[in-house]
């Protein structure tokens, strides 16, 4: 595509659609409406009057799409729409947070009535990963890219091509201006010195002076947009599951389990799980007594899993116990995950004393004479135990999680959360004995006219620790994106691109100045630079009224 050009009287060849000549700044006839300069005294200097594609070409479909997305107004609308939807999504909890056994189709209506039903039917209960929300964010991304390109390329060209000598109209039509009839050489030198002191780069040509500083701040917005685009790309990447592992595992005290999501490569052993609550009785926590008194329940202080991480050594053979090698040992606490080979394990949940580990019993004979004691281990339930005196206690039935159905006692799961055990206490050599049922931490006799009695002497429970397993390859991208964004924002907001032109004409010296922001500071700086040099007080030609 050949680019049409416009030649300025200064000799510089500008791209089609240029509003102010890149070199001398003279307004180019016929293009002034593009930046709305027709009826304004002050020239629009936002992009230095450079030729933006969106403002120049408006014929084809691509032109129109480009023009649409390059509009700041469109970008702002996209932001506002996203903002409103995001807000609506917080009206009721999102599905993952609903914390109810009810399915979503019933939960929202039962809990919140009609509005809840509408919320659910509009799909707001899964808003943030819905296709239309993702499209909204993607549109913002497109707008970011096009907005930036549409402005950055011509602006860079205009700033590169600017000359020291400008057209008088350009200088006169800047926002903050001044002039003087006489400028002594001494004063001129003083201005130059002051400019340099304020870190301006000063250039001169034929008595014209051009001072500029902090041009790099103009690139701030484009830099921060790059950061945002990296973050959005990382978010897209993360939608592919190879980029991250997200799993959950429960490990009981003393148990060794394979860590899910690691291709059966890693195992974890829960050596010990400890927990601690704030206690107003303790010296350390006494200062919280008021708060603890008013709290609804105990306030957790610390949960900690003492863990050993193992790696499988060599090839695994199916059906064979793998050989394990310890790779790491340490504590997992909230805010202090354990890390190994890119994986992290987070302390996420706890089932405190939720399972029975061992239950101890005592058997008494006639006249309460003690016959013996034994301990029942729930994980290695024995068929029978022999007491000290040689008597046998047989385990007839064992229900780890006891429940009663139409068919009698049965077990809901294999986990010993509510064990029920039926024992027979046998006299030597006999097959039939007296039967006892252990349930609900008590023993009841099943046979009539018992001569023996049985009671519980000790119960030991165990806790399980819930750990999330994470591995995320996308994190570095997000971090880099965030850092670039911050650099760009700071670069663009905390430095100001300032330019000052001194333009001699036949009968006076004109001063024009431009800053991309903070006119308040600019005026202050101008007053300091031109103080007592014969220039009239600076005039702001577009002050708010």
């Amino acid at each position, binding site marked *: 595509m050949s680019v049409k050009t416009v030649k300025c009287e200064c000799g510089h060849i500008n791209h089609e659609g240029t509003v102010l000549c890149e070199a001398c700044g003279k307004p180019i006839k016929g293009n002034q409406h593009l930046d*709305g300069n027709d009826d304004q005294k002050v020239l*629009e200097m*936002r992009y230095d009057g450079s030729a933006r594609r969106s403002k120049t070409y408006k014929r084809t479909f691509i032109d129109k799409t480009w023009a649409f997305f390059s509009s*700041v*107004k469109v*970008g*702002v609308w996209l*932001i506002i729409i996203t*903002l409103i939807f*995001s*807000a609506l*999504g*917080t*009206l009721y*909890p*999102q599905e993952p947070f609903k914390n109810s056994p009810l399915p979503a189709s019933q939960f929202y209506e039962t*809990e*919140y*009535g*009609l*509005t809840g039903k509408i919320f659910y039917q509009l799909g707001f209960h899964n808003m*943030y990963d819905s296709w239309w929300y993702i499209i909204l964010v993607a549109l913002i991304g497109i707008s970011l890219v096009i907005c930036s390109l549409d402005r950055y390329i011509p602006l860079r060209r205009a700033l590169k091509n600017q000359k020291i000598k400008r057209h008088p109209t350009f200088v006169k039509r800047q926002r903050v201006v001044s002039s003087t009839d006489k400028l002594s050489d001494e004063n001129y030198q003083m201005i130059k010195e002051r400019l340099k002191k304020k870190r301006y780069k000063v250039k001169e040509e034929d008595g014209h002076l051009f001072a500029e500083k902090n041009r790099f701040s103009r690139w701030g917005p484009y830099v921060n947009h790059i950061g945002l685009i990296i973050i959005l790309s990382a978010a897209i990447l993360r939608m592919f599951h190879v980029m991250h592992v*997200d799993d959950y595992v429960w490990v009981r005290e003393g148990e060794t389990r394979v860590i899910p999501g690691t291709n059966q490569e890693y195992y974890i052993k829960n050596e010990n799980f400890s927990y601690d609550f*704030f206690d107003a009785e303790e010296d350390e*926590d006494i*200062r*919280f007594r*008021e*708060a*603890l008194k*008013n709290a609804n329940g105990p306030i*957790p*202080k*610390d*949960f900690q899993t003492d863990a050993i991480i193992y790696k499988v050594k060599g090839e695994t053979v199916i059906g064979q116990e793998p050989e394990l090698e310890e790779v790491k040992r340490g504590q997992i*606490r*909230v*805010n202090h*995950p354990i890390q190994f080979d890119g994986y*992290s394990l*987070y302390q*996420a949940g706890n089932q405190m004393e939720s399972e029975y580990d061992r239950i101890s019993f005592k058997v008494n004979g006639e006249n309460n004479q003690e016959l013996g004691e034994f301990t029942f281990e729930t994980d290695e339930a024995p068929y029978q135990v022999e007491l000290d005196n040689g008597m046998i206690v047989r385990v007839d039935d064992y229900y780890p999680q006891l429940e009663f159905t139409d068919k009698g006692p049965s077990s809901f799961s294999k986990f010993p959360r509510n064990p029920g055990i039926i024992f027979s206490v046998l006299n030597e050599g006999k097959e039939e004995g007296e039967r006892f049922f252990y349930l609900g931490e008590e023993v009841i006799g099943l046979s009539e006219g018992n001569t023996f009695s049985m009671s519980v002497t000790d119960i030991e429970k165990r806790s399980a620790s819930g750990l*999330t397993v*994470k591995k995320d390859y996308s*994190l570095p991208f*997000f971090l880099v994106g*965030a850092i670039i*964004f*911050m650099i760009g*924002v*700071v670069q663009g*907001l905390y430095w100001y691109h300032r330019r000052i032109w001194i333009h001699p004409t036949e009968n006076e010296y004109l001063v024009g100045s431009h800053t991309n*922001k*903070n*006119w*308040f500071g600019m005026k202050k700086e101008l007053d300091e630079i031109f103080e007592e040099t014969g220039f009239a007080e600076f005039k*702001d030609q577009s*002050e*708010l*009224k």
Partner: protein
Amino acid sequence: MDFYEISSSLLSISFFIYLIAVVFFGAILGKKRDEKQKSKLTMIGIILTIIGFIGQVASFIFRWIEAGHIPVSNMFEFIYFFSMCLIFAFLLIYFIYRYSILGIVALPIAIVLIGYGSVFPTEVTPLVDSLQSNWLYIHVTTVALAQAILSISFVAGLLYLIVKVNQEKRSKETSYLELIMYFVVSVIAFIILSFSFGAADYEAVFNLPENEDLTDISYTLPALIGPTDSELATTDHFYTGIEAPSFMNGPDAARKFNTLIWSLVTGLILYGLLRLLTRKRLGEYLQDKFGKVNPDVVDDIMYRAIAIGFPLFTLGGLIFAAIWAQQAWGRFWGWDPKEVWALITWLFYAAFLHLRLTRGWHGKKSAWLAVIGFAIIMFNLIAVNLVISGLHSYA
């Protein structure tokens, strides 16, 4: 006297110093004094503000020593820290612009905030395990400071509107401005109500006979609206007998609704009284008093506050927050309501910064945006913690 008491007394002292400072800043208002007198009086106002600020910082430090961790972990502490940051941000902007007139808007807002925060339980609370991290210090303090600086743009915006909205006849703009005034008055009404009924130990208890999961609900204000399906247990207390509509579920929904109605009604009465006293719209009354203000400077402060606050908010409210969330829960972003509202705040100010690039969005339009921005911050601070439940609903 222990550290907790020292801290509380220092806070009360600061509160009163701020009140006195407002009186001095009030010297700007009206036409009776000449410029020289005014600048002298506002100078005293600034000095008092600095003294009050130092007192508040000292109070903060004593509370820190008492608690053993930075006191920003419950509603009272956060609002109190936020108000401290607001004063700091005001002083910061003052030393850049030397524009003391902002004080007459900033200080009352800080005072109302301190009053509002004091309604919540003030005792030191233990840190639940997930908050025990150095990121608590970094994340919460940067967010509070950022939001305070962003609030200065609201202060400047409100000032701009008070001065620039045409008060000659009633319009949409004057009505919205009155609405802002009414909100401020309602918050004051809420504080007065809470403290007076609190001082009288008022408590009306409701039983919920049909719901076995929930315990009794106690009201600290007389019940205009009772909980759904409830019975008043303390029968000697006032009760209209009107129950909250059934869609207001949740144990505290009806109680909060009741408090809201009380605040709005009392606010309306207070507002009406003020209107009767001034015989003008409050905006009109204030405009007369404020006299001349340089709109360019105020507009610039509005923008500058956002230019400083926005990057800080991004850092504290999004980046630090994400890093901490990654460390605590293994997910840097989880669409928790508080996170979503931080994103909304961020998007809003991003939109604001972009609109500043568009012609015609300086001045009054910007000022209205600054007001909306503050409303979002307040919503995130109050409603998201108290109404919408989530990870941050610790208060």
